């Protein structure tokens, strides 16, 4: 089963600066990691590969340094990688990003399955996975917490998955090829191995850019993005809250008293008489 895993490089901390002009992130001088939620997608792909054979290809789109994320994916056990990078792709929103990635996947070759993380921890939209599925017209299951394969004559022909939804788990059957986005419950991501790290250094990673990708120039980058950031503000984090000390019995009783009065004032105290 050949699997493509689109991943994203994200800032390591949450202390990111924004460019007030373009409303996009300033990535310089900030440590980066593979989006933590993408590690679960890589893990899922590697487990399926271990059970059914095939090749796992990590794919990312981003500025030049983002190639590092692909090397980390190879170190974890991915076989190959594809890098999508071009100045003209910069500032893409989830619509333009999913278009560009979908075009690259079309050109990258054969696949049975695409597995994405639930969302990236920086942009936090979760829109690129479903977007890619729409572009490629692939059956889609989001928030997948478990996967089992439906066996065919010699290879799996479909998947049965459990989606984490508000009511519990929705169980779906999808034919292959398909696209999944997975959640943390799917399994703990493995650590990179020494052998993997060595392989990561020497693996050749093909580059897709504006020259060798078939793209509608009106659909890429900041210009091709339907959404525009108009304003970025730093919300006030502090609330003018009350903090009380509860170090002995009397203080505890008083603190709980005040808490109940506070909750009551806000209409949050459950039914019953006023304290």
């Amino acid at each position, binding site marked *: 089963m050949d699997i493509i895993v689109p991943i994203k490089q994200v800032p390591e901390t949450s202390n990111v600066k924004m460019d007030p002009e373009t409303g996009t992130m300033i990535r310089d001088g900030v440590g980066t990691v593979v989006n933590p939620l993408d590690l679960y997608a890589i893990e899922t792909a590697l487990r399926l590969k271990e059970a059914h054979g095939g090749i796992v290809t990590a794919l990312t789109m981003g500025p030049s340094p983002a190639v590092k994320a692909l090397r980390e994916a190879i170190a974890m056990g991915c076989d190959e990688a594809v890098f999508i990078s071009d100045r003209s792709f910069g500032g893409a929103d*989830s619509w333009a990003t*999913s278009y560009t990635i979908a075009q690259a996947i079309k050109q990258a070759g054969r696949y049975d399955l695409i597995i994405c993380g639930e969302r990236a*921890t920086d*942009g936090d939209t979760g829109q690129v996975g479903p977007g890619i599925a*729409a572009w490629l017209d692939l059956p889609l299951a989001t928030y997948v917490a478990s996967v089992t394969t439906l066996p065919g004559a010699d290879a799996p022909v479909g998947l049965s998955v459990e989606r984490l939804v508000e009511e*519990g788990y929705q169980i779906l059957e999808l034919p292959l090829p398909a696209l999944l986005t997975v959640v943390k*419950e799917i399994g703990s991501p493995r650590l990179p191995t020494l052998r993997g790290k060595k392989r990561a250094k020497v693996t050749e990673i093909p580059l897709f850019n504006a020259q060798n990708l078939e793209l509608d120039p009106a659909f890429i980058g900041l210009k091709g993005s339907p959404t525009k950031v108009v304003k970025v503000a730093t919300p006030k984090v502090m609330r003018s809250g009350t903090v009380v000390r*509860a170090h002995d019995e009397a203080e505890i009783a008083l603190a709980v008293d005040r808490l109940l009065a506070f909750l009551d004032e*806000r209409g949050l105290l459950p039914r019953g008489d006023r304290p």
Partner: protein
Amino acid sequence: MSFVWTLAEQHGGRLKDVSFELLSRGRALADKLDTKLASVVIGDGVSPEQLEALIRRGADEVYAIMDPRLAHFVCETYSNILSHLVKTYQPTIILAAATSMGRTVMPHVAVRVHTGLTADCTELDIEPGTGNLLQTRPAIGGNIMATIKTPQHRPQMATVRPKSSRPLPEDATRVGKVIEVPLIESLIDERVRVTGYRTDTADFVNLEEADVVIAGGRGMKKAEHFGMLHDIAGVFGGVVGASRDAIDRGWLGYSHQIGLSGKTISPRLILTAGISGSIQFLAGIKTSETIVSINTDPDAGLHKVADFGIVGDLFEVLPELQRRLHEHAAAPPAATTATADDERPDERQREERV
């Protein structure tokens, strides 16, 4: 002027609370634009009374597409239907809830109809002059609020964080039209099949739709100690959540996790115990209405964002809180605390859902 739309959600033929929350958002926008508000319901078995309730709570029109094959959310089919409706009626704005359904079908439709979509908005407004929808959302772990618009494409699409607005009270005098839109056969995509639901898991929680969340972290020390939190949650009719630390120790299942790699929630009340408040955790609770924290460390991050903080040992404070809450709940209700049904639409539906 083209309409503002909301995408209602149903499960098992029952409209979910978010459907009504979206209407209060949509109503405000439609009024500013001087246009009408319509709600789209895709599903099966949603009763005429429930469809009328959408009108009583703010909609001018309801488009109902009902068919047994639409009973369960399947992205491809729902996306086909919504895309078709968009092309036919050309709304100016579509709001959906930032739920497992909204966050799946909306990006799919946005690609199909070539328009912008903003995820998980907490504020919506209309830009004076242009009439563009201003969509504000927390990004980068809630460290910034980004305001986004879709100036050149229509409809303008947004998903809205559940519980970030309250439903409008029922207004029996409101009049509107319920339009039954027939299902076009070719819009059914049979590739993906729903084979069932699993809800038997005892350790499962619906954090995003809860009004009250009682959350514990590493300071709880043991899985057994979460019993105290379950007890307190019970008094409030709420649910139990946890920080990543607690989840990674296996004290509770993933559905309980709050924060950057878990759920982002906006309950009316979150009470935390033994959670210091990492940036990642705070990102998940920042838009909550009221935050209460109990922690021994006076410098805990949570005390800084809390509306009410108690600096003390949770193993001393929680038992006292439990005792007082039970005492309080057992007391006979005063006449003045009776709340009109209209203001508490959530209560009844939650009981039925459980």
